[in-house]
């Protein structure tokens, strides 16, 4: 008990510190701040514009009404914002750290590696534009749908949002671990994997052939990034237990990713890093 309290205290202490560091970085000069905020705004717009316009033009997409599509987009952008907030600074783009030999910096810190990865990327200020937009869209979507806005439902929403984040991160770590074995070739593989998830997550996948859908819920789990949990939360599949499918999937994906990453770490400790680039290590 005492150990877990101490662990929680260390976690919060680090989050507070990295949050402050992030805010300092954001406001280091006005030009940088404006440029960053503008580029984040464009990123969000690019992620949702197509689907938003399609649902506006056709008053929804397939079985999804327009507010439900807005909810879906809000869910996707919020999950994205949560990851940006908690795992910024190339923690989510782990292939960059591995491929550039920067894990040495993590290993030199006197704390368990998960604690470093859980705290070092905490960037609430930098992630705020995306998270804020996501929450606004989510509120807009909830307002337009017949979602049962009870405390339990909001708790399930939070659980599913967290689970989606875990699935996306697990995919990133599983794919990014390739950089342990091919540092140069796979250094940017997480850029591609993130782009893949970002492009696919905003589509309602209803009506997609089972084989393809199976692939989108396993090999490239974009279906769990927004579509499946939203469908469950909005009651579109008429099967109540479906609200816990994404959390269960998150546990499974996390275990697989953990196994791959640990295998990669063992390889890293055996071979070391054959290259080192300082780029992106410290902002």
């Amino acid at each position, binding site marked *: 008990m005492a150990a877990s309290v101490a662990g929680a205290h260390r976690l919060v202490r*680090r989050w507070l510190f990295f949050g402050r*560091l992030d805010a300092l970085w954001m406001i*280091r000069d006005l030009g940088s701040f404006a440029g960053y905020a503008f580029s984040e705004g464009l990123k969000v717009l690019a992620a949702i514009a197509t689907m938003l316009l399609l649902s506006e033009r056709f008053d929804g997409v397939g079985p999804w009404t327009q507010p439900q599509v807005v909810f879906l987009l809000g869910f996707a952008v919020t999950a994205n914002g949560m990851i940006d907030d908690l795992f910024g600074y190339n923690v989510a783009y782990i292939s960059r750290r591995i491929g550039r030999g920067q894990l040495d910096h993590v*290993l030199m810190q006197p704390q368990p590696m998960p604690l470093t990865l859980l705290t070092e990327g905490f960037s609430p200020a930098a992630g705020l534009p995306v998270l804020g937009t996501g929450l606004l869209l989510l509120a807009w979507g909830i307002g337009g749908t017949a979602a049962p806005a009870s405390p339990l439902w909001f708790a399930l929403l939070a659980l599913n949002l967290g689970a989606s984040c875990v699935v996306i991160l697990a995919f990133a770590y599983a794919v990014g671990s390739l950089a342990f074995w091919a540092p140069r070739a796979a250094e940017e593989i997480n850029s591609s994997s993130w782009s893949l998830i970002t492009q696919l997550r905003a589509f309602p996948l209803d009506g997609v052939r089972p084989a393809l859908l199976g692939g989108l819920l396993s090999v490239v789990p974009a279906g769990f990034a927004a579509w499946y949990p939203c469908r469950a939360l909005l009651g579109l599949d008429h099967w109540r237990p479906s609200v816990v499918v994404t959390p269960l999937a998150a546990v499974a994906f996390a275990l697989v990713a953990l196994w791959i990453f640990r295998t990669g770490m063992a390889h890293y*400790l055996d071979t070391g890093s054959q290259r080192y680039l300082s780029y992106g290590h410290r902002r």
Partner: protein
Amino acid sequence: MATVASAAPLISLVGVWKTYRQRQRSESFFGQLRSLFRPEIKHVAALRGVDLTVARGEIVAYAGPNGAGKSTTVKLCAGLLAPTRGTVRVMGFDPVKERVRFVSRIGVVFGQRTELYWDLPVASSFEWKRVVWDVPRERYERMRGFVRELLALDDFFHTAPRELSLGQRMRADLGLALLHEPEILFLDEPTLGLDVLAKRNILSCIKDLNRERHLTVLVTSHDMAELEQLAGRIVMIHRGSIAFDGDFGRLRREAAARRVLTLETGGATAPSLNGAELVGSEGGRHEYVFDASRVTIAALLDQAAAQARVLDVETHQLPIDDVIAGIYERWLNDATRGSEDVAAGEVRPPRQQEARVAGQVQVGDGHQQDGE
């Protein structure tokens, strides 16, 4: 150079091997295609049964040519690599298995890497260290004051590292590494790229730390003059084996009894001296290199006086850099000869136990290793 050492070993490497796998590439298309499915792997030994102990309070210079295994050793000691065979113990810890507790008691500085936040003031990186290392506030305040004064950080403590010179940045990095009061400092090429003044500052700080706080230091560098200023003991590694372990004076005596003799004769023609090699001649000044253990200065002067009118004589030891360059050159020549006999990349059994005699420079007979 005196260092403050006690007898208890703080760093202990026993029979340490580190072997890397290297995939062999074919120059032909079909060869490459075949290696996709049946790769040819070469095992390269970066370290071959290294035995090394460092006592508390020692400053040890760790030197060797490129690819000799210096950085590999530092990484093994810092817990960034696991040995293939053998035992690494630092302060009694297994650096890899007990990483978290271990790294809280060491400091590591790699010359070409920084732990500083690039766009934030140096002060923010110090705060980062305090939080992540869980340094108690009292110790943090005390050590921050100490390193700010020792390394003269005040002028740029509130400046972002991207606006600092390399020397200032290195001082800040060194200060950061010392903030939690480590017992051992590992420095890998800490003065790479620094100008003379910046180097002198860094070296002087490290010496002060050793003298005042009994800090144990393992430092690698290519700059022998710098290492000699800093360390009492030098360990030279060659092709993964320790080839010399002793003090600089012994290195000079045993590896290089070679001295420089300069004669001024007034004549353009240099006297021919048996036992000395003419290395330069300009304006009546003739420079020779000779082995003082084989021929005496008096004998050389007798020969010179018999051939020309000697106006002035000057003799001195070779600079340490030249001594080491001579050793590396001999190793390299020997490696070239040896490569005809030794299959490239073949991992050989440790020769160290049977061949190494502490304090003697040995000439290896294998190939140049990769792995750094």
